[in-house]
């Protein structure tokens, strides 16, 4: 499984780049970046048809609806060459393409400005519908948080996705079970999420969101006439033991000994 091994190594590097960026900025959402990291790596380095030119209209589209997880996306956009690596230490700084939440107007390769939760889903549905109307073969992939699904507009958009038979649309739910304030099932329970998505007309797969052997076939899958939903069971803060499944690491930044431990566990070194 050379393919999977290469993706695992890529994900390790991207997690380190993400940590570098958050440390240099002094803020940023690391927990949700790490839960979504393997999903994004599978998409950008294997499943999606991307192009050297971020403005190429024929490439597949990606929407990070959980826009606060942008450090991991920024790390990838630099690695694939959409944004110069000189931007790495500018996260959340004045004039940076790496705004606190993704802004398509200033950052090449961002297909949708996000940050306001729920919006990436409704816009992603519109993109998929527009591509279908124009008989395009491009696919649209949207990564959403689970807490994000508290927003009503997500369900308006899900209804529309199946109504318009958007089989070019894949919604990936980063099911890390933690939102800002608490466990999702304690704060505003999502309950039978699979059943909910199926009842909204989606073809649903539920997989381990850190296992590339499960991610790749699920992301490649298309069902004629139906939008696809992948419930990716993930671990918030995946990769750094003290962050994992800990609500405190929604927006925390490692300090002191935590920094060295994080790099050690990720197999990297801290270049201050």
């Amino acid at each position, binding site marked *: 499984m050379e393919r999977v091994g290469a993706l695992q190594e890529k994900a390790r590097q991207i997690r380190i780049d993400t940590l570098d960026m958050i440390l240099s900025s002094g803020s940023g959402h690391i927990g949700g970046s790490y839960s979504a990291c393997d999903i994004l790596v599978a998409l950008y380095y294997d499943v999606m048809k991307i192009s050297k030119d971020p403005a190429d*209209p024929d490439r597949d*589209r990606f929407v990070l609806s959980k826009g606060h997880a942008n450090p991991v996306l920024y790390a990838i956009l630099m690695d694939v060459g959409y944004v110069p690596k000189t931007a790495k230490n500018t996260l959340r700084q004045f004039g940076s393409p790496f705004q606190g939440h993704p*802004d*398509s*107007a200033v950052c090449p390769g961002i*297909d*949708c*400005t996000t*940050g*306001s939760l*729920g*919006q990436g*889903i*409704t*816009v*992603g*549905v*519109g*993109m*998929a*519908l*527009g*591509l279908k*109307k*124009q008989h*395009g073969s491009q696919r649209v992939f949207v990564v959403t948080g689970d807490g994000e699904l508290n927003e*009503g*507009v997500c369900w*308006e*958009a899900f*209804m*529309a996705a199946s*109504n318009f038979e958007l089989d070019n649309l894949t919604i990936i739910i980063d099911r890390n079970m933690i939102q800002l304030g608490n466990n999702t099932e304690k704060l505003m329970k999502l309950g039978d999420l699979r059943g909910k998505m199926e009842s909204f007309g989606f073809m649903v797969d539920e997989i381990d969101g850190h296992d590339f052997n499960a991610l790749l076939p699920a992301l490649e899958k298309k069902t004629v006439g139906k939008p696809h939903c992948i419930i990716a069971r993930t671990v918030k803060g995946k990769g750094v033991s003290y962050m994992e499944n800990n609500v405190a690491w929604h927006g925390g930044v490692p300090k002191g000994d935590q920094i060295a431990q994080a790099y050690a566990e990720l197999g990297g070194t801290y270049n201050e």
Partner: protein
Amino acid sequence: MSEKRATRHGFYDGLVALARDHEDVYAVDADLGSATGSSIFQKAFPERYIDVGIAEQNLVGISVGLARVGIVPFCSSMAVFVVGRGFEIIRNAVAYSRINVKIIGSHTGITAASDGGSHQAIADLAAMRALPNMVVLSPCDYNQAKKMASVMYSHEGPVYLRTSREPVENVTSEEDEITLGRAQKLRSGKDVCIIATGMMTVLAVRASQILESEGIDATIINIHTIKPLDTESIREEVIACKGRVVVCEEANMFGGLSEAVASSLVEENDIVFAQVAIEDRFGQSGATATILEEYGVTPEAIAQKARRVVHH
């Protein structure tokens, strides 16, 4: 006097004509096509008409997605709902993102009379004016609304268009040229400058006829572009009328055209300013004529304010 027609229908007649030459023009609605007028487009181009159901957030969000893949979507609902419930999506996904989405709010002001206050948009101008990157248009009659489709299409970026349910006579002609961002002079006078937008322009023209019979010679300026506002022409015309100005809008008195005009005049001396607008109340059901009378938005109310500034 010409046949009375509504701006909500004029706009979609114009959009159908535009769409014949531009395949990227789509209309999107939230199950109110017969009310907003978009059903006119649906009949002409069913394959380019998208109904998202009763979901105004999704109406705007889907339109943004369409725009992001090269379509020029014109999305509509009653202004109360598309501007109100859709506001944060308009704010972040359209205006902040500088996306080429056109938003049409119908049933503005209090002349959606029988539907009652829940359906009468009086704060849409204030809300849309407050957003950076947003162009705000308000045609005065059917002929002008019809031209708005191509004006909006030619402007790359977010636009809000305000339409009305109320049929009114045309005060502009099919031949009149309009330019985005430019005030339009409909009548040249010297005693008072009446600045109006939307249906109020039609009432202002009627008011000028009352005033003329009393020996008051009014300038009538129609503002079809509320943002960006043609402040230079406004200043010139008001000064030419001895600083006397009456601003008329079918919207709440705060945040709309009146305050925009007042802002443009604050550095001028000897301005006498009056406003005809809804005086910080919600609307209610009733016959249109009754409602207009109750809320003080009539030709006579405009004439009365004009007399007051003239005899100040």
